[in-house]
């Protein structure tokens, strides 16, 4: 099932999808940088591909790179048939961060995206129910941004 040869085929497939796809260095699993414009298209193709069948969105999260003024959205796709997994990352600006919603492809994305919105403030196009998920509706700020501060945070004195 999960053979090295299949992994190579997957690499070939992903790089052929869009000319702007580049491998993401320094990652423990197979990872690619994807341009934001073609994200929805690439995800749809990967979901529908009969050979690999990435039927699960295993994880959706984001990284904050304050020095470069960007977020990096992470999508780990997983296949319950072939057990392959691949990490796709999308760079997006920190100001007015918007991503396309994947909830039409994987149902679980609806809530994963709500979490990323709650923690990073990334908003999603065509999201069916964009609300905060863990924090109060009137919470100010997005806690997992690196520059987040509030009065309850304790600082380690040493």
């Amino acid at each position, binding site marked *: 099932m999960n053979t090295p040869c299949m992994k190579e085929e997957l690499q070939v497939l992903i790089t052929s999808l869009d000319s702007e796809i580049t491998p993401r260095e320094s990652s423990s699993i197979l990872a690619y940088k994807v341009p934001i414009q073609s994200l929805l298209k690439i995800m749809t193709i990967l979901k529908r591909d009969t050979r690999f069948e990435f039927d699960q969105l295993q994880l959706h999260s984001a990284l904050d790179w304050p020095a470069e003024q960007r977020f990096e959205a992470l999508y780990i796709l997983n296949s319950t048939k072939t057990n392959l997994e691949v990490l796709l990352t999308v760079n997006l600006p920190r100001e007015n961060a918007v991503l396309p919603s994947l909830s039409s492809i994987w149902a679980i994305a609806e809530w994963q995206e709500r979490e990323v919105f709650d923690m990073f403030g990334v908003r999603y196009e065509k999201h069916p129910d964009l609300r905060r998920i863990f924090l109060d509706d009137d919470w*100010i700020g997005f806690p997992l941004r690196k520059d987040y*501060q*509030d009065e309850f945070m304790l600082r380690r004195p*040493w």
Partner: protein
Amino acid sequence: MNTVIVERPGTGNLVSRFFYGFKSLLIGMRLTFKYLSHPSTVVTQQYPENRKSLKLADRVRAQLKFEIDGEGYHKCTACHICEQQCPNASIHVIERKPSATGKPELDTFIWRLDSCTFCNLCVMVCPYQVLKMDATFESSVYDQKLLAYNLSPYAGPTSGVLMKIEDPEARKKMIEPRGQYAGPTALSGYPLAGISKKQFPETTHQGGHL
């Protein structure tokens, strides 16, 4: 993959299910009656009464303690490794430099039970095995402030330094006794007596923006 499909509950007409159901209820009642009729199967431990016979495992982590030798001395050199490893800043090592020797030595070793998660990292990293976890679990008090302990019985050098001095009186001069609640207390949500404001800079509210 070696899979197995789990069994489904039996189907059948109403009559057979009715009799099956009757039987299954009786089987369940037989099981519970077995336990009722065998008082030896009772597993209850009556805790405060059984204190004397209560036997906890050796490794139970319920309280941080100092290893104290027969003379009442410890081996802590105030190296701060445990303090750095503590994930919750529950340990605060305060050292002093007596003018006689000029060498840093332990003054008080503050350990906060209220924020400790008993992760055991401090015990693991201690280079001199000064710290140990103890099974004393009855540590509830009525005031949270009483959960900040000083573990060190005295302020002074390690047992290694002290034992080199022959004269007990001279040793006594080098050390100063410290009580269980001596010294200032480490990080917390509220200030405790003896902590300078400087150590805890006020954080201001700077919320992000939508």
